């Protein structure tokens, strides 16, 4: 694979990542959110695969497969199941309206670029050029977590954040050691499963999955 092609592919997938997460902040439909998440996972897997092919690194290809399986299929599936269980189709009235969310989004992106100056300075290249995307994903994820009231949205936010971290990991260093990657993914999976179970119970107990009703524990 030629360097130019590699560049284009990396930038393409990075673009897809960014686009999907912006859409995630934009749209309120939970169904769409799950689909976008799956798409994002696929894009991430593709990026990993591209790097793997480019560096002809089999382990990385295996990781790509793992990522595709986990983030492209399993997690979205789990997410959709619990969405169906809570019976919600869209996020009603988030704490921050869409317009201002998008404005904040742009600010966060700028911060992301500011933060990733060191890498761009360290070795300019397509992968490092895409690092800000990863960091922006982390920040977007956090934004979603803080502003969305529905349990599913929070899960989405958490996963976006996780995707961001993974992106940074692959772009900066071609992934952390395999053991760690494995463990980390497993952890994420378990967390999501736990949250799903808890979300289910909350739906039963509170008759809904809107988290701002969880304010019994306070001082």
């Amino acid at each position, binding site marked *: 694979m030629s360097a130019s092609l590699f560049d284009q592919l990396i930038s393409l997938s990075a673009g897809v990542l960014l686009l999907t997460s912006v859409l995630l902040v934009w749209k309120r439909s939970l169904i769409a959110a799950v689909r976008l998440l799956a798409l994002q996972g696929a894009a991430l897997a593709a990026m990993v695969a591209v790097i793997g092919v480019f560096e002809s690194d089999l382990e990385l290809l295996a990781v790509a497969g793992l990522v595709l399986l986990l983030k492209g299929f399993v997690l979205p599936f789990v997410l959709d199941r619990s969405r169906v269980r809570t019976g919600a189709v869209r996020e009603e009235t988030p704490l921050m309206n869409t317009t201002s969310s998008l404005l904040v989004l742009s600010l966060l992106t700028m*911060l992301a670029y500011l933060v990733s100056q060191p890498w761009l300075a360290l070795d300019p290249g397509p992968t490092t050029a895409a690092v800000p995307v990863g960091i922006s994903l982390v920040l977007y994820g956090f934004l979603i977590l803080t502003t969305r009231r529905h349990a599913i949205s929070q899960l989405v936010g958490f996963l976006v954040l996780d995707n961001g971290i993974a992106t940074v990991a692959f772009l900066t260093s071609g992934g952390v050691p395999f053991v760690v990657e494995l463990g980390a993914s497993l952890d994420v999976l378990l967390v999501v499963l736990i949250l799903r179970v808890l979300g289910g119970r909350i739906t039963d107990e509170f008759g809904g999955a809107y988290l701002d009703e969880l*304010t019994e524990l*306070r001082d």
Partner: protein
Amino acid sequence: MTLVLGGLLAQLALTCVAVAAAVFVVPKRRALVAGAAVVGIAMAGAVTGVFALSGGHGSLTVPMTLPLGPVVLAPDRLGGFFMVVAGLVGAVATLYGIGYVRGPAASRTSWSAMALFLLALQMVPAAADAVSFLLCWELMAVASTVLLLADHARRAPVRSAALWYAAMTHFSFVMLLLGFAVLAAAGDGTGFAAMARVPADSGAASVAFVLLIVGFASKAGIVPLHVWLPRAHPEAPSHVSAVMSAAMVKMGVYGALLVSIRLLPGGPAWWGLLLIALGAVSALYGILQASVATDLKRMLAYSTSENIGLMYLALGAGLLLRSYGVTEPADSAIAACLLLVVGHAAFKTTLFLGAGSILHATGERDLDRLGGLGARMPVTSAAFGIGALGAAALPITSGFVAEWALLQSLIHAPATQDRLVAVVMPVAVAVVALTAGLALMAFVKAYGIAFLARPRGEGAAAAHESGLGMRVAMGISASTVVVLGLAPGPVARAAAAAADLSGVGAVGWWGIDLFGIDALLDPVALTVLAVALAVPVVLVSARLARRQPRRRVDLTWGCGGVRLSPRMQYTATSYAEPLSRVFDDALRPERDVLVTHAGESRYLVERVQFQQNVGDIVETTAYRPGIRWMDRVGVLARHLQNGSIHRYLAYAFVALLAVLVVVSL
């Protein structure tokens, strides 16, 4: 193994014995056995103090887990002086306690705490480095709090008293910690030897001095940090209040001496002024409150804060004069400070033990319900009387000698050198004088109301003399008051040795001689003269008495007709009424008079109800608002954790953004 080391070890060993006895001996004999062991601790402490005071050396090193430098107990002469005081007070008070304690105050916990309390109390002056000092200091605080809590189940005020005490004593600990930490950083070491290397004119020294003095002052009950004192002393068992007031509070004075003489000698003049100001304020405020107080033990507590004030004033005068390089008056002032320490220890122990017997016999602390105890409890009456004379600084008691020395050193200040001194010294003299006058009034009131005339309440009427042990203890401490008043010379010598003072010594029959400022006082000679003058008077009286024996009559004259009921006597409240009017602004007493008219008449009065309550103005104006403010802060702070997960996530998000901004700048 030197004598001092032996003494220290003996105290530790005896403490183990005492705790074991307190825990394992059956309740019937517990007081006797454990009490005996505790007396042993105290005596061991006193003896160790004597060894150290007479120049003996010896150190006990305590190993520590943390690399904090050596932690050593090694009393020097000054420490020895205070060990003696603490030990003797502890011994007498415990002897008294053996007969006094009952109920929860006689429990395992209380006796063990008593042992630890005395141990810590005697180890504080022995500490030779900051960490062990703080350790003993806190142990002392903890043990005394436990003792204070003895009656928590029966009387509600105990809890609040303990809380006030705990908070203030922890405040003092915190201040000491900061102060010592400053010195440790500046002198590069937690040992007192290392700290003494810090130059007294450095900024660090001044910061440390202020911090430490504030810390010690709050332990010493100096106004405005005294608020715990009038609460804790009344609620504690009387023998404990005796130790607290006569020995523990003194550690605040020891600390002040430690800082200003041993650690940071030769400080600037304003250090002295600070101490004088603190001392003057608390002397006046304390004695004013004492002279209007009607609760006996509360009054004694306030008088403690007055006496400590005088000690701080004396020390401050000493520092001030030293900073002007005039040695002799300075040294006699410091000697006066130490004499005050000893004197106050003696008479305050006596007074608290006496108050304990009254409480024990009548169940009353309120002077307005006492009276006529002189006939019912002669020994207590005599002891308390002697103690009161001491507190009123009349000859021939320990209190008088100390105040005399203080006044002498004040008027011998060569104020001509400096206008500051020329203004400060007269004020100091005036303060001491007014304090002495009011003390006279306060203790005449206390003794006269409690012991003379007729009982004002059933409790007083049914009073009985207390048990043998208690009487012996009171006898010992009362006679100490007189002995110290008759023979101040040895004490003066000891003081001179403790703080190596020049121009202070003894003369004639154990008289005190401040030859540095050529003033001498020989109480024995004075007494002899007085007796010589009194003899003829007594003889004449005796002859007349033989000719005309005294005739007992029914009642005092009741303006014709009306038989005087005991309730017509002057009470403590009415006794202090003129004074509380004179000092209205300083005391702000709350009076309310309720007049009930007979029927329609505007002139015929059926009954008049008078009620007066003198609160602690410092507490009401400074502490209460502070506490309220803190509570408000607490209620407001609840909004931080209002349960919204989004808010919590926002905290984290903001933190993340902040960190990112910081690192990328």
